[in-house]
């Protein structure tokens, strides 16, 4: 077997971030040990072939130096585009810094696993560090916008978002742009302090042969709330890994998602919630809609640690296949080591309700419009959880035929 992973790492260059020695070593060893990209024999990549990724020729897009300043916005924006990056000024209670300036000690809290995170550790070319001071509520949404466009490019970024105790913030993670051929690997670490509340709306809409790997790692303290909605549309290849370490007591996690695959697109959502402390709750709700020959994956893993009693973990994944050539692979995984817990999960994959479609058409509504209405209704719970107006509009545009 060729050492295509090693070669791939080389073309991405060396990271501009000051990662701690330990992590770099771990990542280097990880890549060396694995040598080549995982295959579908590797459980986490069972439905997602990486051969095309291994064959990509892309040059790293670096975001060094200070960002250009953005002014007069109702939102606090950080924009990563090919060529340069921009950033709004800090506001009371919110500090922004380039990830290049984050000290090795501040990255220390994280551990990495898997080739995606290892590549990120070794080759990240920038990112944003955001800190919300204890007790502050940031009124404007903070948007991190990624636009990868042009002939080719690799956007490898590592963000760190620290929300201190009792702070509240709403964040939008936006992935757009049209590239002929692109690779992105964006890792975002969220540190959610005690009683802090974080709401994240994530919108993925990249055009072209864009291979996107998105990892969010969330470390939650006592009585904190973390909510994230991941909406994926129009993307050639997307792999999302959301991993939550619910390490403080009575923390609440909500992970919602909706994905829309057409053509030969592939959308793979992996979630992993670690319930490490008692009285925690988690609520997962993912909806998939697949047309044509699109492929969807939902793999939701929940692990309840031995001392994590009184956990309430709920997981639901429902999918609609709008063509007989579309396929969906759904897999819940529960690992429970505590005895007093409530865990439930359910997954269904079906077709559009033919009776409902006929009913709508019989009132004069076109088949396309009726389908759109039923798809909208199917995803309503997820859409309602999205607070970002920008994303709401983008979803409506995407679903309107």
């Amino acid at each position: 077997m060729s050492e295509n992973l090693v070669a791939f790492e080389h073309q991405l260059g060396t990271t501009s971030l000051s990662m701690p020695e330990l992590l770099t070593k771990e990542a280097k060893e990880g890549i060396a040990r694995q040598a080549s990209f995982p295959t579908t024999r590797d459980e986490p990549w069972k439905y997602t072939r990486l051969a095309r990724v291994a064959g990509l020729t892309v040059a790293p897009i670096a975001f060094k130096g200070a960002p250009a300043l953005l002014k007069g916005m109702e939102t606090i924006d950080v924009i990563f585009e090919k060529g340069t990056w921009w950033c709004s000024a800090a506001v009371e209670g919110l500090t922004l810094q380039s990830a290049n300036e984050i000290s090795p000690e501040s990255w220390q809290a994280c551990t990495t696993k898997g080739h995606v995170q290892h590549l990120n550790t070794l080759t990240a070319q920038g990112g944003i560090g955001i800190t919300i001071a204890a007790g502050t509520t940031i009124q404007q949404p903070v948007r991190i916008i990624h636009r990868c466009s042009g002939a080719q490019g690799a956007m490898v970024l590592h963000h760190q978002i620290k929300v201190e105790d009792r702070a509240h913030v709403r964040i939008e993670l936006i992935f757009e742009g049209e590239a002929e051929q692109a690779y992105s690997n964006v890792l975002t670490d969220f540190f959610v302090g005690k009683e802090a509340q974080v709401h994240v709306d994530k919108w993925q809409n990249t055009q072209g042969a864009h291979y996107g790997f998105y990892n969010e790692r969330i470390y939650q303290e006592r009585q904190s709330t973390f909510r994230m909605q991941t909406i994926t549309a129009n993307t050639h290849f997307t792999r999302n890994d959301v991993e939550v370490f619910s390490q403080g007591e009575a923390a609440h996690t909500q992970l919602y998602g909706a994905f829309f695959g057409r053509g030969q697109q592939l959308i793979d959502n992996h979630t992993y919630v670690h319930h490490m402390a008692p009285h925690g709750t988690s609520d997962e709700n993912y909806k998939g809609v697949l047309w044509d020959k699109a492929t969807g994956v939902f793999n939701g893993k929940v692990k309840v640690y031995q001392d994590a009693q009184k956990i309430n973990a709920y997981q639901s994944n429902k999918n609609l296949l709008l063509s007989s050539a579309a396929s969906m692979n759904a897999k819940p995984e529960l690992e429970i080591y505590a005895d007093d817990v409530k865990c439930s999960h359910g997954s269904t994959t079906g077709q559009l309700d033919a009776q409902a479609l006929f009913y709508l058409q019989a009132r004069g509504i076109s088949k396309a419009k009726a389908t759109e209405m039923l798809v909208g209704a199917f995803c309503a719970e997820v859409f309602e959880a999205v607070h970002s107006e920008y994303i709401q509009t983008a979803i409506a545009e995407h679903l309107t035929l």
Partner: protein
Amino acid sequence: MLEIKALHASINGIEILKGLNLTVKPGEVHAIMGPNGAGKSTLASVLAGKEDYEITSGEIVFVGKDLLELSVEERAREGVFLAFQYPVEIPGVSNVNFLKTAMNEIREHRGLPALSAKEFLSLVKEKSALVELDASLASRAVNEGFSGGEKKRNEIFQMAMLEPKLAVLDETDSGLDIDALRIVAQGVNTLKTSDNATLVITHYQRLLDYIVPDYVHVLFDGKIVKTGGKELALELEEKGYDWIKS
């Protein structure tokens, strides 16, 4: 307005309609009666354009157009309305949104401008009052959690909103209490003009006391085997269907 000639229709290879003929003129009310499984709902579904049925032979001309050539939505836009025997619940789609979309698609087809929100709402008010449909139901999801009677009223409410040329009421009376029956029938009568026609499918003569038919047909084993005036319904009520079969 509607001319059905020697219609044969089957589902899953089983022939259900076996040479059905029916002519309906503007301003007329036709009642169709017949035993369970005779093919009454099949006829209604075929008129509305349900794709599960295969039309093996025969023709349907509706206001000069070949109905069988039209899609489900085109038929509705041309003025065919089916009040379903079993209205479908559609969670997540609000009744109001659904109707607004339907009305505007139909209006566009007829070359009329879209209704303003205000015009639409006042129509909703007026027409829901006609069938005494609780206004709060309009804002709920389509038929979701509606009682049997509420679903039927909702069908007639939609009919009132869409003003079809040909309304096919498939057992709209079943599941209605006596008051509701009268209200729904009054609604239908109010909507009646000399330009539109109604096809009433029912098992009970009682409905025909309120919606007085010009013709009563007996549909039996996929064909119309007897046609008469409104007195035929009374006769059927008394004697059942056996005397017709033989």
